[in-house]
């Protein structure tokens, strides 16, 4: 079972990387991009076959290591 963990800078936490990407898009002539936030996606291959259990396990991994919940939020998708 595959789990995909999306890790994003928390709302309210400055995201200078996202800001820089926004400026670059503007420089390329893409208008109307009001905000850019940059995060990361971590894909996990899990032996677990129960979707709910796989999700709970991935969330536990995110809390303990994959995200720093002081500055980042996360969301888990099971595929």
């Amino acid at each position: 079972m595959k789990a995909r963990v999306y890790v994003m800078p928390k709302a309210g936490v400055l995201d200078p990387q996202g800001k820089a990407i926004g400026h670059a898009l503007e420089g390329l002539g893409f208008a109307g991009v009001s905000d850019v936030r940059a995060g990361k996606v971590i894909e996990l291959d899990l032996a677990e076959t129960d979707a709910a259990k796989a999700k709970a396990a991935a969330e536990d991994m995110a809390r303990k290591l994959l995200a720093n919940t002081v500055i980042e939020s996360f969301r888990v998708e099971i595929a």
Partner: protein
Amino acid sequence: MKSAVIVFPGTNRERDMRTALKRVTGRDPLMLFHREELPKDLDLVVLAGGFSYGDYLRCGAMAAQSPIMRDVKDFAAKGGHILGVCNGFQILIEAGLLPGGLLRNASLRFLSMDCHMRVERAGTAFTSRWQKGAIFRAPMAHGDGNYFADDATLDRLEGEGLVAFRYTDENGTVTEAANRNGSARNIAGILSPNLRICGLMPHPEDLVDPLMGGTDGLPMFESLADAFVAA
């Protein structure tokens, strides 16, 4: 003073730290690789700067999970003194031994330059040789030193006198320009509630000898030597 410097793969400032510790104590600290065990009779553990584990995932995140950090956490729980500089500060935060987070510098640039700091909390094992309000210079070299914590945490740190150092100009004034990495409330270094764990981004260990261009950082190591004078 019996001290140990922890060396992770990618740590690169451990020898600077050894020089500083040896200068004030006359003896070499132990240099411990991340797979070794922490001896029981240490006074001070130092996490030095560098790029442990290539800064994978987040700066300090991998090192915080390495075997020796279990011993370091036990050492902290027993009231041991720990100094973390630069990547060492990032590791202390990722290990949950100090609060907050260190984000990418607000400018997105790697900063390699001198900065000035004001001593906000004197009278600790790390700062006793300074007066409160003293200003000193230190080199900094980091990409992720932008200290962040929520307002409640920042208020608590300030209220309990746990902000150790703040970025200022050379006259000791807190300015936005002096806060090169964008840290919340110009915070450069913090202390644990028991005042025995200290983390900061700049490198006092790199200004401990006139040959290095100054001795601004020496009081930190003299303070530590004083704290463990009998040991």
